[in-house]
């Protein structure tokens, strides 16, 4: 990114010190998913630390997202970051139409010369989580509450299932769909039903609705797990694991690179190997103490599985590639 670009943008900023301007354009409203909140935090933090002007723009629906993307291009931001599969279509178009503009996308890959993409192999972490559940369950029934029965969430459910079956082929896997990303009451009912069907571990994979799963766990003394950040700190007795995904770090790094001039286009893909995804206690330590339900012995086994995935001894199938 050359100086000429910053000069253009200076006209828009109040100070005239030619601060770089970076926009994070989200395809949805931020509150829909913890994942966006986390990303925004990393984005804002980097903005402050590296003296870059940051602007987060939410969109209420796909059409609004497209309009926001185009308007942001028109408003001459130096870098436009966006995220998730939902953004692919629009980004492909907009980036192609504006070859001299810089873009970045988080959580999926768009292979264009002016786009930097960072994808995640969540299914590897899901595999670990599923294995953890399979190793720990006493009732041989484990459940998962997912937001919707859509391909996107197969990254969680299919990986989980593979992991579960690999360590405990006899275990029964229950899955329930909330039908919405923010209906904790319904998610709680689903978790209660799975509890009624004998599950002693119910994984949450329903974005904001997970809070309902956590509550069910607390109420019925179930074990559960969270997503994206370390949720075990909220209730270590019941939320015993958390599947991690470093979206905040990626947003932070992207801004940092851009501010320092080390920003490069191209694609990157983060899995267990790159430490982009993970599982608490296995790939990363947690502030909370390990639940006896999981137990140190299992953690040791899981660490081995992690190493096998990294070394390629275990190949986790990408659920989206069929």
């Amino acid at each position, binding site marked *: 990114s050359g100086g000429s670009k910053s000069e253009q943008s200076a006209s828009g900023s109040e100070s005239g010190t030619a601060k770089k301007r970076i926009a994070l354009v989200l395809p949805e*409203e931020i509150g829909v998913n913890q994942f966006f909140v986390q990303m925004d935090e990393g984005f804002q933090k980097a903005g402050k630390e590296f003296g870059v002007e940051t*602007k987060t*723009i*939410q*969109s*209420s*629906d*796909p*059409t*609004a997202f*497209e*309009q*926001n993307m*185009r*308007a*942001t291009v*028109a*408003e001459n931001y130096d870098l436009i970051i966006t995220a998730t*599969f*939902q953004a*692919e*279509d629009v980004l492909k178009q907009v980036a192609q*139409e504006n070859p001299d503009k810089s873009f970045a996308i988080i959580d*999926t*890959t768009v292979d264009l010369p002016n786009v930097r993409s960072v994808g995640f192999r969540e299914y590897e972490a899901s595999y670990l989580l599923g294995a953890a559940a399979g190793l720990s369950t006493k009732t041989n029934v484990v459940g998962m509450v997912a937001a*919707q*029965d*859509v*391909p*996107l969430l197969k*990254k969680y459910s299919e990986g989980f299932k593979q992991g579960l079956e690999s360590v405990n082929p006899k275990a029964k896997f229950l899955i329930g769909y909330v*039908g919405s990303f923010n209906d904790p009451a319904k998610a709680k009912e689903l978790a209660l039903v799975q509890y009624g069907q004998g599950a002693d571990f119910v994984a949450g994979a329903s974005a904001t609705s997970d809070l309902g799963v956590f509550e069910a766990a607390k109420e019925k003394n179930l074990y559960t797990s969270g997503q994206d950040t370390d949720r075990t700190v909220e209730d270590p007795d019941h939320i015993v694991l958390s599947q991690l995904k470093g979206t905040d770090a990626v947003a932070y790094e992207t801004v940092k690179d851009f501010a320092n001039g080390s920003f490069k286009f191209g694609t990157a893909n983060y899995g267990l190997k790159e430490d982009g995804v993970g599982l608490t206690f296995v790939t990363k330590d947690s502030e909370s103490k390990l639940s006896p339900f999981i137990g140190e012995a299992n953690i040791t086994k899981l660490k081995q599985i992690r190493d096998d995935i990294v070394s390629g001894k275990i190949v986790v199938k990408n659920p*989206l*590639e*069929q």
Partner: protein
Amino acid sequence: MNAIKRTLLGMLQPVVAVLIGLLAGAVAIILIGDSVVDTYREMWNGAFGSFYFLTNTLTRATPIILTGLGVALAFRAGFFNMGATGQMVLGGLAAAITGLYMPGPGWLVMMMALLVGMVVGGLWSLFAGYMDARFGVNLLISTLLLNYIASLFAGYMVSFPLKDRTGSAAMSQTPMLATDVWLPKLFSGMSLHAGFILAVLAAVAIYIFIHHSVAGYEIRMLGNNPFFAAYGGVKRGQMMVVAMLTSGALAGLAGAGEVLGTQHRYLDGALASADYGWSGIMATLLASSHPIGTAIAGILLAALQTGAMGVERNTDVPLEVASVIQATLTLFVSARFGYLFLKRRKERKNNGSVV
């Protein structure tokens, strides 16, 4: 003279309402400590600030106008059709399927896709009408319920049988349509597509139909007083079919237009999450089911929405506050200040004795 006076008075009402709405919105902005002037300027810019943003607004108005017209026609016939969302979703899905799988030259596929979208939307709406006419299943409730059913069904279709398996294959969506099937853009580099022309034509056509055609007359009378219509030999069943079919077809066209003109594929949730259906109903009600009025109200509502996006992008006022302002404005736009104000003054003038 009188006609001019009446038109002016008719315009006064919405103007006063918008002013009060802006005032109420200003209170919201002051409460969060932002500049009222800046916020409204950005709102205006986001909606009409340049030719580009104007076309954005018109793009967004297109599905609102079309669903609104459909709702208006059903209302006129006395059918409270709240099912625009479901009809739109199925129309969009059908258009996408046609666009993907029908062989033939692009323009023909495009036309067929629009047509199939209309037919499917129309049939879905007619289904509700049929249950009402034949089994006495209340239309208001059934159309609301059918929205959920349609959305879930379409969600299933694009999550499984019709799923896009190209690319990352993570989204619940159909594959992308071939470019020659897309509705042409009206101006290069802008989002406005030919669907807007269709919406304008539809508004004019529905206006002529409702106000000047015999069938439209019968539909209006049916809506006004079904007994009178029956007495005069209006065939309720036939008119119901015409009204519900057309109403659903317009919603279906709205969905097909979005699919062929904007998203270029059917994307799960894209039509429902934008609340086009509810906006269409609001446009109709604001215009008392007048087709041309519905089109204007549709543009107004779209402008409020694109304006809110402008506020989101260019001020520190967050999106939710922008939507509060938008809701406040619509809330007051339908109020009848002008009317009350005038009526009271007139009464005072005419009836001297009134205290």
